[in-house]
């Protein structure tokens, strides 16, 4: 897996008779890390689902390509909640989607993936409902990784875990991204998380939503969370988000 290139051109998506996204154009280079921010309900999840192929486009073009060959790219999704199958043990959940000819090979890969996200070994054979929120989300991350994705989609994956666990999971994610080289698209409400992890942060806004602004994060890795450049960028993104969320009021007072 070396990462897929994603191209969106003039994409328009509706749910029911409600137009959610319109004229979305984006290029996500192979192996890059993109963060998407935007007000609640703007259509971030919808955009990820379109990338995963579970929501049809009304208009426009979407292509996900592996640069080396034309073969079908592998897309994996980490949902907002762990979404493990409650009737399979943790390792079985991962083995279910693992590639491999034999059951034992899939199990081996599942163990390796769970180890890669630093899940304690005694949690491997636990039922999902026995796991803490952070452990379950790690298992979900392992399940996505075991498929050897070219494109990894993450929908607010760490929003339900405590602050310390969140920082740790962010570092695991970064470590895995550097190791495996997949293209990552992360939806998040946490602007700190966005600027710390991503190469680029895009802001979705408007109704129907489109890409309002795009911020390049030109800070080399490994990054320091306290880096002044990150702090400055964070302030800019927050400012843009604020304008986006408070649009009607700002427009009324400004004109």
């Amino acid at each position, binding site marked *: 897996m070396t990462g897929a290139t994603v191209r969106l051109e003039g994409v328009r998506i509706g749910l029911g008779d409600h137009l959610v996204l319109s004229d979305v154009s984006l290029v996500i280079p192979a192996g890059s890390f993109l963060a998407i921010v935007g007000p609640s309900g703007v259509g971030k999840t919808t955009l990820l689902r379109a990338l*995963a*192929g*579970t929501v049809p486009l009304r208009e426009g073009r979407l292509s996900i390509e592996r640069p080396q060959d034309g073969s079908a790219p592998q*897309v*994996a*999704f980490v*949902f907002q*909640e762990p*979404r493990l*199958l*409650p*009737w*399979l043990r943790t390792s079985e959940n991962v083995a*279910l*989607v693992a590639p491999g000819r034999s059951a034992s090979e899939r199990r081996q890969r599942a163990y390796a993936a769970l180890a890669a996200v*630093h899940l*304690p070994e*005694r*949690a491997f054979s*636990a*039922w999902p*409902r*026995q*796991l*803490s929120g*952070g*452990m379950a989300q790690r298992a979900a991350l392992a399940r996505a990784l075991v*498929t050897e994705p070219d494109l990894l989609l993450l929908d607010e994956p760490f929003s339900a875990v405590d602050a310390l666990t969140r920082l*740790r999971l962010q570092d695991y994610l970064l470590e895995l991204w550097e190791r495996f080289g997949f293209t990552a698209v992360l939806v998040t409400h946490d602007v700190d998380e966005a600027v710390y992890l991503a190469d680029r942060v895009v802001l979705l806004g408007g109704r129907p939503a489109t890409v309002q602004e795009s911020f390049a994060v030109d800070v080399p890795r490994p990054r320091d969370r306290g880096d002044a450049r990150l702090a400055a960028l964070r302030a800019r993104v927050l400012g843009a988000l604020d304008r986006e969320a408070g649009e009607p009021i700002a427009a009324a007072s400004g004109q």
Partner: protein
Amino acid sequence: MALQRLSASARDEPLSRTRRERVPTGKLTRWVVPWIVPALIVAGWWGIVAAGWIPSYQLPPPQTVLRTSREMIAQGELLAHLVATLQRLSWGYLLGAVPGIAFGTLTGLSPTLRRAVDPTVQGLRAIPSLAWVPLFLLWFGIGEQARVLLIALGVFLPVYFNVLAAISGLDWRLVEFAQVYRLGRWRTLRFVLIPGALPGVLTGLRAGLSLGWMFVVAAELIAASSGLGFLLVEGQSTMRPDRVLVALLSFGVLGKLSDSVLARIERVVLAWRETIGSVQEAEATP
């Protein structure tokens, strides 16, 4: 929960003593307590009859019932009736549960079919199912076939409703997971749809079983020359309350046994729901 209670009550005692003493007492209590009420009932029953408050031709004392049941077992009579009842119930259960699962699944999976069929079925549901009995007798006569079909009807309805609810109540988020990870039809069915619907299906099967017993009695009360229900009617018409009681007790024992078989299956199959403890997080720094 039991664990919590134990540790709470044991808090002010030395741990080692608690461990040694509580466990056997607890075990003994567990085995003895459930038998206290039945023992009291039998004693009361015996007392009432012995005191002559109820004449023994209406309520024979426990020892008479015991003797009668021993005779009936010795002559093979009880077994014959038991077998007849169980046979009917098994056929009826099979003929009710299988279509119940099949139709419930189909209606659950297809919204169109659900809109077409479900209001009608829900409407029919308002009729207490025993009210169908006379119509059934009119249509199918009073033969063995009619009895089995009647039981099948009683089993079908609760199985159908529960399966339908289980299938249409499946977590769409897990279905989306299956889609995104391209599990394909077979694995989606095997790992997502079936296990997701299983709790509801098992609830339906248990409800179907208890209705099945009800309908066996109905069928045998009305028209039969064998079976435990027949034994009830016959005991009544020949003024043999002891035989009626033997039949009643047999129903009780069989009903309980068959339900615990299903309950056991449920516990094994749904082990993932029964978990209490959680895996503690001990963060090892990488």
